[in-house]
């Protein structure tokens, strides 16, 4: 039986009324999970687990998978509408998605996000169906030195997410790196900068930190300006992306999908690195990089595609090796194991119904998400047209509930409030919050892998240069630094002044 026969068989399985229903339930729940802050995929899995006892294993995994990729699909909604990222990969969507919404183009941003998610999802599914085993083997080339080099490249790329001066960006990134060190060090078990509190043992919680730095600061700023009175008017024809938008978003979507699919196979990175790398790439190769951060549609399409492509290729380690890429997949494996099915290399041959049914259901689920999300855009737009004085208390309340719901403790709301104060001061000082949170997420991954690489090499730092893939990424990092520094020198000779410093980094 060829792959195409298998796929046809998969559709026969996925299209049975029961599986179709559970796919729909999963996708619907996933959309809700993606939109509501504080409720994450893992919590939802835990609640749904007893239900999966009663149903067929194929239906169970179809539903749980629907929740997982559905949440990824709708993740961008709050980033675009409220400047509130619910998951790390949503941070990147805030950079351009929210400015688009402020310009009355929320509809275009949401539709672009939905369409590029759909495209990336379809490609990701094809990759699982055809190339899973080969990719799983290739992913083993990535070890601690390679992860280190990728993180270094990504951190250096952090300067692209802001149009502020280099020194400003660097300073913000350093603050983020410092904040990222809070919590238990995995190499020694020592608690760092927790001031003896148990609450900070695992570092700052992402949801409360992002809520403070993005959503709350935004509310404070809008209330402090005349802007708060101004309603955003969205014209009906702005509900859907126009032809120039589609043209502008097409290639970034393809590139984002490719990058996301590749990074998603690596179990050690997670969707943030994928969506952020796609954003950085787009703003580096754009003809006019200064548009980024001010509502560039590429800045929504590329990271959204990368996020969703990586969400699907994340399945590969589980399906081919029986190794979960993160806690979500541990739960998925647990749900299958309870039915006596061991995920791993044998799943394709021993349970073809389940494997190909799942693949087909992913495609159907993706289609359902598109059908579900496009009409919802109209609802979201209506919400934006409501006077701000009615919306912001609701946003505040919902976000606080979200912060609380992650660990069920008030401490996280207090963190959000404190971060709001710091974030407000930073904004007033014209410092960009983007690099802070990027460095805060990347810093721990960098540190963990760099120390692991040094431990494994026995303290020999040349390991980073002796391994070809890591050497390549480090070389790329150096090249990136050169492109920053050289134009700064050249221009400052010709035309001194703060202007040139600001623009220099983007001129190539």
């Amino acid at each position: 039986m060829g792959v195409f026969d298998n796929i046809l068989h998969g559709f026969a399985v996925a299209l049975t009324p029961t599986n179709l229903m559970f796919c729909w339930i999963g996708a619907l729940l996933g959309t809700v999970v993606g939109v509501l802050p504080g409720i994450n995929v893992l919590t939802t899995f835990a609640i749904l687990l007893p239900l999966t006892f009663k149903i067929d294993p194929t239906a169970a995994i179809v539903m749980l998978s629907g929740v997982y990729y559905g949440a990824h699909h709708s993740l961008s909604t709050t980033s675009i509408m409220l400047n509130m990222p619910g998951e790390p990969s949503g941070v990147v969507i805030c950079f351009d998605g929210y400015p688009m919404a402020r310009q009355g183009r929320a509809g275009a941003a949401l539709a672009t996000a939905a369409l590029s998610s759909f495209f990336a999802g379809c490609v990701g599914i094809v990759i699982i169906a055809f190339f899973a085993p080969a990719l799983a083997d290739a992913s083993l080339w990535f070890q601690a030195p390679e992860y280190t080099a990728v993180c270094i490249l990504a951190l250096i790329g952090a300067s692209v997410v802001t149009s502020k001066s280099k020194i400003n960006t660097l300073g913000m990134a350093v603050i983020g790196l410092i904040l990222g060190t809070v919590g238990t060090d995995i190499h020694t078990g020592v608690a760092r900068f927790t001031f003896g509190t148990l609450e900070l043992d695992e570092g700052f919680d992402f949801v409360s930190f992002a809520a403070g730095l993005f959503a709350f600061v935004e509310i404070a700023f809008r209330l402090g300006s005349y802007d708060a009175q101004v309603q955003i008017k969205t014209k009906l024809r702005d509900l859907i992306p126009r032809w120039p938008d589609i043209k502008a978003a097409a290639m970034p979507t393809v590139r984002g999908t490719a990058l996301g699919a590749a990074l998603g196979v690596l179990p050690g990175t997670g969707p943030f690195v994928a969506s952020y790398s796609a954003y950085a790439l787009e703003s580096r190769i754009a003809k006019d990089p200064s548009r980024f951060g001010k509502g560039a549609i590429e800045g929504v399409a590329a990271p959204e595609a990368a996020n969703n492509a990586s969400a699907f290729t994340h399945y590969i380690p589980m399906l081919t090796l029986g190794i979960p890429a993160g806690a979500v997949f541990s739960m998925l494996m647990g749900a299958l194991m309870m039915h006596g099915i061991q995920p791993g290399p044998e799943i394709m041959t021993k349970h073809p119904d389940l494997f190909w049914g799942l693949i087909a259901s992913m495609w159907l689920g993706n289609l359902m998400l598109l059908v579900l999300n496009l009409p919802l855009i109209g609802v979201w737009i209506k919400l934006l047209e409501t006077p701000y004085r009615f919306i912001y208390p609701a946003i505040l309340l919902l976000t606080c509930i979200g912060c609380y719901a992650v660990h069920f403790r008030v401490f996280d709301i207090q963190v959000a409030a404190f971060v709001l104060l710091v974030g407000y001061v930073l904004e007033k000082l014209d410092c960009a919050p983007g690099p802070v949170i990027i460095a805060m997420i990347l810093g721990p991954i960098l540190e963990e892998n760099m120390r692991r690489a040094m431990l494994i090499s026995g303290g020999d730092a040349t390991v980073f240069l002796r391994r070809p893939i890591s050497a390549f990424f480090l070389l790329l990092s150096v090249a990136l630094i050169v492109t920053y520094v050289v134009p700064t020198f050249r221009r400052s000779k010709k035309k001194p002044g703060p202007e040139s410093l600001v623009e220099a980094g983007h001129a190539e």
Partner: protein
Amino acid sequence: MLKAIITTSFASLLALGNASLAQDYPSRPVHFVVGFGAGGPDTTARILAAQLATQTGKRFVVENKPGSSGIIGAEFVAKAAPDGYTLLVTTASLASLPSLQTKLPFDVQKSFKPISQIVASEASFLLVYPQLPVKNLVELMAYAKDPKNRVLYGSTGIGTGSHLRMALFAKANNVPMQHVPFKSPGEAAVSLIGGETHTLFMTTTQALPLIKSGKARAVAYDYPTRADFMPDILTMKEAGSAPTDLDSGWHGMMGPAAMPEPVVKWLETEIRKAIATPEVRERLTNLGLIPVGGTGEEFGTVLAAAVKGMGDAARAAGIQPR
């Protein structure tokens, strides 16, 4: 003085209330607190809660209080009202806390009343990277003892079962090895099959797909008898080393220390009944867990042994409590 009188009388009133409440326990939803997020003990708690609800018609709610290696959830239960409505479902890692932390907000053995050991731990396989030039345990030990070689072992984190087990093995056989901690079993497994690290203790269900596909080689089974599903793999003793005897994977239920005895007995009986049902047994066994459902007293013995065993292991691993 007045304050003291009020407090004591209030406390005795509460105690009276408890005694009468014990008759019609549970009259409201019982909360199973899990000190971790989804997966692991949370799954066990949910399987048990679902069966208890079906079998008694009462409500059982699983509540996650994750953070600080389970300390936050355990502290919450230790300080909760001892009325049987707030209970802890925990893993054996609780028993390792006294040897990892100096300032625990509770006493693992004195602050809790053991109710039932729900499941026992599954055994672990000792895996090696297949391209490492060792075919069995004796060769692995000889290879690691050769000063020309540097053997690295992965684990799922400092003080976890996979770390302590290897530390005990290394110490007992005087084998020098370097510890490389990871954050999850998945990362440790990928590192092993990619040859970045050389050896790893891995629990049965996680290890099986790797052994079957040849991505990892099993050199020993850390259990007194061979596994009937893998009869070719020698036990640690047969392969040439003492078994580690580390009991690091059980899940059990406990409540605040002052819980009334009738409530404990009620829970003990219902849990035993729940775990004896074929559906629950099957689910737990499929997850690689061994259903137990013993008495509180038996669980107390297991807990005390685990506290001692994990303490010895932590010292063998050279962990300094903080």
